């Protein structure tokens, strides 16, 4: 028998045409059809030491599901995914696989790694089309009640895991739709909202109750969740919800947005459909987005789709230091985003109607590495220049939302307002209160929040069974 030869590169992902998609909110990556998925799955050599699984924050049995795809057992593959990950269609789209499972792939040592993320997405989407359901019977009801605050990736993961263990779970969401950043932050063209709805429906089918329009800290405090509503444990996953603006002149002009506002208007409120939807947004013709992360990429690509003739990405370091996924940077460039590296805003200039006329920037050069190990940008004296724009969007990171810490004085937070929680368990210093996701770590990724949810679910389960058990040691974050 001839030795099996391995295809050196991934089966390429079918993409919508760059010119057409740059003006459309339809999804960019179209997904593998069945035959391409099977072909890609066959690239997996089923190696013994399964390094990919160690790279997965939620420990999916990756070799098994890929083998099932190769064998065309798609239902089996779906069950394998669902066993560890209740949001596979979402993770298949937005996880940074290149830093996680795929970074560890044995094939990837000499060739491109197996396209694990694309296969995950394929299985989830296929399952939705043919209506596979995860019919694993839930554990018998335990009678315990857990409140989950926030319905983003961390909250949904905790909710699903605890519900499967037989606990009663209620998720409180402040906005009118569940999903957190999956709904208000990540745009339709990268993660269709119908997919988020579909995966959340899966959670309600296994008994998770979701209450929208409940702003914990206001509608009920954390203490009231225990004392008045009778929950035995609370998991706080409110995300990184406070925008930051630089202290420069002109920051409150009309046309200056936080990425949160710009994206929320477009994604949650569907401002791109205005006036069919009621929420407007400024459809700038020349838009500058400040930042270099995934949120900045989402914002600048949204600007194109809202009709910008020029969509600039202004970043103070170089392309190599951008925290965004390479795939997102490439997609943005293909669509016509103009990247201005080594520049930072120093002022926003106004017209006579208090609207943005231009942004003043200063050129930067890279100096010594900073605490993050990246070379820090240093302003070059006298290098200021003006860029004519009518809209400016800041995607330069997030602070912690104050609503819970303001009303929960005995919940310790760090100097940035992030909740102090044990990395392994999510336990806080307040009995029965756990936390995870961006409210603990500051802005991170969907999958790391899900990983925190997964670990916290185990700890909450243990706590419910034995509330007096100690041993949680919150570490300084």
């Amino acid at each position: 028998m001839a030795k099996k030869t391995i295809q050196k590169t991934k089966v390429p992902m079918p993409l919508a045409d760059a010119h057409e998609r740059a003006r459309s909110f339809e999804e960019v990556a179209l997904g593998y059809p069945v035959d391409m998925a099977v072909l890609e799955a066959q690239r997996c050599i089923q190696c013994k030491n399964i390094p990919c699984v160690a790279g997965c924050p939620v420990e999916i049995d990756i070799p098994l599901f890929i083998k099932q795809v190769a064998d065309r057992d798609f239902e089996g593959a779906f069950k394998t995914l669902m066993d560890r990950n209740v949001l596979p269609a979402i993770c298949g789209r937005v996880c940074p696989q290149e830093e996680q499972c795929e970074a560890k792939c044995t094939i990837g040592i000499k060739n491109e790694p197996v396209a694990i993320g694309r296969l995950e997405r394929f299985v989830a989407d296929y399952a939705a089309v043919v209506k596979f359901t995860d019919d694993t019977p839930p554990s018998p009801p335990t009678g315990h009640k857990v409140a989950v605050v926030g319905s983003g990736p961390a909250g949904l993961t905790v909710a699903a895991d605890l519900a499967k263990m037989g606990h009663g779970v209620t998720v409180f969401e402040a906005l009118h739709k569940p999903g957190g950043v999956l709904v208000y932050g990540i745009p339709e063209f990268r993660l269709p909202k119908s997919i988020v709805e579909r995966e959340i429906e899966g959670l309600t089918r296994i008994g998770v109750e979701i209450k929208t329009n409940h702003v914990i800290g206001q509608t009920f405090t954390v203490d009231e969740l225990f004392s008045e509503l009778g929950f035995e444990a609370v998991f706080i996953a409110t995300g990184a919800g406070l925008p930051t603006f630089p202290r420069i002149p002109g920051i409150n002009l009309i046309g200056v947005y936080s990425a949160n506002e710009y994206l929320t208007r477009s994604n949650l409120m569907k401002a791109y459909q205005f006036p069919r939807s009621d929420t407007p947004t400024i459809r700038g013709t020349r838009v500058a987005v400040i930042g270099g992360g995934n949120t900045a990429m989402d914002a600048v690509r949204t600007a194109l789709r809202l009709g910008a003739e020029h969509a600039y990405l202004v970043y103070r370091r170089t392309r190599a230091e951008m925290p965004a996924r390479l795939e997102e940077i490439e997609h943005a460039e293909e669509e016509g985003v103009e990247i201005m590296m080594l520049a930072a805003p120093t002022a926003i200039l106004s017209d006579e109607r208090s609207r943005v006329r231009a942004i003043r920037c200063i050129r930067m050069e890279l100096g010594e590495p900073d605490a993050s190990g990246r070379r820090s940008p240093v302003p070059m004296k006298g290098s200021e220049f003006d860029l004519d724009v009518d809209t400016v969007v800041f995607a330069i990171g997030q602070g912690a939302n104050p609503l819970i810490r303001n009303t929960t004085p005995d919940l310790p937070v760090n100097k940035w307002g992030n909740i102090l929680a044990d990395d392994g368990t999510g336990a806080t210093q307040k009995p029965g209160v756990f936390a995870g996701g961006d409210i603990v770590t500051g802005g991170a990724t969907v999958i790391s929040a899900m990983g925190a949810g997964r670990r916290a679910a185990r700890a909450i389960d243990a706590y419910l069974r034995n509330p007096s058990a100690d041993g949680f040691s919150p570490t300084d974050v």
Partner: protein
Amino acid sequence: MHRILSKEVLAPDVVRFWVEGPHIARKRKPGQFVIVRASDEGERIPLTIADVDKGRGAISLVVQGVGKSTRYLNSLSEGDVILDLAGPLGRPTRTPPGRKVCCIGGGIGTAVVYPIACGFKALQGDVTVVIGGRSRDFVILEQELRAVADRLIVTTDDGSYGERGFVTDALRALIADGHAFDEVVAVGPLPMMKAVVDVTRPLGIPTTVSLNPVMVDGTGMCGGCRVSVGGEQRFVCVDGPEFDGLQVDFDELQARLRAYREQEQEALRLYNDQVAACQAPR
């Protein structure tokens, strides 16, 4: 979903609703607001909670029909439902006990002043209320406020009711009469609040204003409601809605309120056309 229990017209284009909302009624304190989304394509709009009825688990909202969203809201009737209602949001009014306070409401701002006046009165305050409107038809909540206030003065721009003039004229007269207010609270259109501050600033009277900027989520997430207070950036939804009026940059806020003027007019025009088409004889 929140059922509308009752609806009454208080003034032209100004409606008072009582709406089911037991969780909100239970928690709400004077000065707080809710985010309302009336329909599936609707905007999230902030509205101050004008009153509560804990027995019925209901809150009252006073809505002025200005743009599409508020006009649509005002077209709803008793028995209809409001899709989304979230709250209570914002920080409550600070009502130290035994305060001699002058609460000033202009137009729809009177509905915001009412719970604030109640809050001070409940803590043995001496409460003077000044309410103003363009003309008699636009003076709202007079009876309700009269029941709370130690003294109440109504002003109208055209003199068709109460005293002719602006609320600031009444405030000046009260001060000239020897009323030494510990605090003035002013809620109404921005030019009115600015005018009140112009009166109180030279006299050093602490002055609180309640702001109503453009808002999206109302939970601190978007920063759209940012205002400059004493040179610092503050978010009205989580740091407010009430601020030290002597420190607020009203001109900047006035400009920011115009951000979506053109879109708002377009949406209203389309809405009016739709309403007209529905009402046209077939």
